[in-house]
């Protein structure tokens, strides 16, 4: 990323483009990431939204977006991007709009849609090589409906549909790998608490064409049960414990953009969130804590065994 215009924090945009006063919760990590993403993608965009928390960004007659917006449904935002992109291409080729009037189609979706109901539509658009950016804010559950577990919920987390002593029995799906298996133009994981890393990736994605994934971990005070003021710290801990590896896929290779030299123990990330409180109280669940740590270690060992270069 030597060619980036974002060398230090000072190079990041000073003011946000996206309007404030939305219906999102205080400390929403998804909104924080979206602010940073929008600052770089800008207003020559049309956001095609899938049902989720962010649907409530635009409530008639208000919108925080300076550019365009189309709410679709939970399952088919990528198909909406397909229709818009195809139409813009037709209009461009016939000279009915000028190249200056062209827009970038951006899907804005939650994890529930991205990892589940909307996966077939997303897979279809990647396979067709659609020129679009796909932004998933991953709050690891169906947030808008009260944080039921989704295909993105991590092992052991308490959700409104996994309230037992061991939390969610399933395992988080690897959406990044699902995308990479489709050989898109670009895929990256980001988190709002690492703005420089995020800005560089959005800048890079913006300069490319074809299907591009931005998968943003979205610490969610409401669903994860933590104080809104802690959102940035939790995002940082997700990276430093190795729970959320910051990486990108480009040109057939996966690169780690921020591999921690020495990973902090996972429990430092878990113990600050109410959704994992049952792992610590009334007594420590050593087995489950050990399992979760082992999963993170195994994922990193696998990455290292493949000799994945680090920047």
């Amino acid at each position: 990323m030597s060619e980036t215009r974002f060398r230090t924090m000072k190079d990041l945009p000073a003011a946000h483009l996206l309007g404030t006063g939305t219906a999102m919760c205080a400390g929403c990590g998804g909104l924080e990431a979206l602010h940073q993403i929008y600052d770089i993608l800008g207003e020559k965009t049309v956001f095609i939204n899938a049902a989720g928390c962010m649907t409530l960004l635009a409530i008639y007659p208000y919108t925080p977006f300076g550019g365009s917006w189309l709410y679709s449904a939970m399952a088919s935002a990528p198909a909406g991007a397909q229709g818009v992109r195809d139409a813009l291409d037709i209009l461009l080729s016939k000279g009915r709009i000028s190249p200056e009037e062209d827009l970038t189609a951006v899907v804005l979706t939650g994890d529930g849609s991205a990892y589940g109901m909307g996966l077939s539509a997303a897979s279809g658009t990647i396979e067709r090589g659609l020129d679009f950016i796909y932004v998933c804010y991953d709050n690891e559950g169906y947030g808008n409906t009260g944080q039921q577990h989704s295909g993105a919920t991590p092992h052991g987390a308490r959700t409104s549909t996994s309230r037992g002593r061991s939390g969610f029995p399933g395992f988080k799906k690897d959406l990044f790998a699902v995308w990479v298996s489709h050989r898109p133009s670009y895929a990256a994981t980001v988190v709002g608490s690492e703005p420089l890393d995020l800005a560089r990736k959005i800048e890079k994605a913006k300069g490319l064409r074809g299907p591009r994934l931005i998968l943003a971990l979205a610490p969610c005070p409401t669903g994860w049960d933590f104080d809104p003021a802690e959102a940035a710290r939790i995002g940082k801990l997700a990276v430093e414990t190795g729970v959320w590896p910051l990486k990108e896929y480009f040109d057939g290779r996966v690169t780690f953009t921020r591999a921690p030299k020495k990973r902090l123990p996972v429990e430092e990330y878990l113990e600050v969130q109410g959704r994992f409180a049952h792992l610590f109280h009334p007594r420590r669940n050593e087995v489950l804590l050990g399992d979760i740590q082992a999963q993170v270690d195994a994922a990193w060992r696998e990455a290292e065994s493949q000799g994945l270069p680090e920047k």
Partner: protein
Amino acid sequence: MSRTMLTGNVAAAWGARLAGIEYLPAFPITPQTEIIETISRWIETGEMDCRMTTLESEHSMVTAAGAAAAAGVRVFTATSSQGLLYGMEMLYTTAGWRAPFVLVNVSRGLSSPITLEPDHNDILAARDSGFLQLHCATCQEVLDGVLVAYRLAEDERVRLPVIVNMDGFHLSFTREPVEITDAAAAARFLPPFDPGNLGFRAGAPLSEAVAVLGGSPYSYFRYQVHLAALNAEAVFPSIAGEFHRAFGRPFPAVETYRCDDAEVVFVMMGSFATKAKAAVDRLREAGEAVGLVRPVMLRPFPSAALREALAGKRGIAVVDQNLSPGRGGVLHTEISAALQGCAGPSPVLASFVGGLGGREIASEEFCEMAAVARRAAAEGRAPEPRLLFTEAERKEMRNLQAIALARGARERRP
């Protein structure tokens, strides 16, 4: 004018070609697939300048269709039965977007049990979606219907998507003589799409389909869809009149056949109405004053035209090629409602359900239905609704059941 033998599917493709469609989001399903195959061939040979995208489902297909229409291009798409239902969420959604495009549905009975043959439960499931509906009875009407549908959809007083419906097999795969409209005349009747205020452009931001809070704005936008659909009823006669003058073929909202002096009429939609027509001819030969009323437009519901067509009739046999379990025929309900509170003596309605999954409706059955309607009129009392099924069919079903239930039936299967 020369006519060409075309299947209903190829007639639909010709309609799309003459309409100068710019975008075809597609997904295969029997008996519709020939439509998208035909258009894709014309795109490959350069006979059509259109972009085709095969989506991975009808849900996505309808989404892409609506999104592209909302972005300002002329869109055509097609599906059938399971596909129409798979895309149902997006039928309601794109109608709410006020995205004007045309979808041809090739009617086919719905699962379960799964079948390929036609009835109207698929299209009627979309009745309240906000799409307008035109129901065709001939291959010519399919071609004409597509052109008329674009004029309706794109009219600035309407701005709603339209479904043009034809029956699977009976029209989709049946060749009939069709006059392929002259391209220049079609272009005069249907000029290029003027998207007006639709479209996404840099420098002209647009928020479409945003959330609303509370029932008032929600009601407002839903009422707008309803009022726009009612506008379609108002503008339809002038569009159809223009079509008639341009091509010499009528395209009525309600077709009437030998109705003027009829005492008893059949009310039916789609290609099976042709069977009713033949029955009308035979009954007329036998000296009976029988006619046919066929709603071509189902949404908006042409109440006024239907009342006019049915005024003064004594008995009405509504033959529904659909079934609302627990209620009966959908068209019967709609016709009853339309006649409610009309001035003058009210006709007696007899309700019949037939033609499900392509079941034949025989000539004798039409005679019997006319007789039932006539008797009911004489008695002044509506008869019990009837589900058409003959004694012979019942026997055949018993045979099939005996085979299905017999031990070792699996082994005996060829």
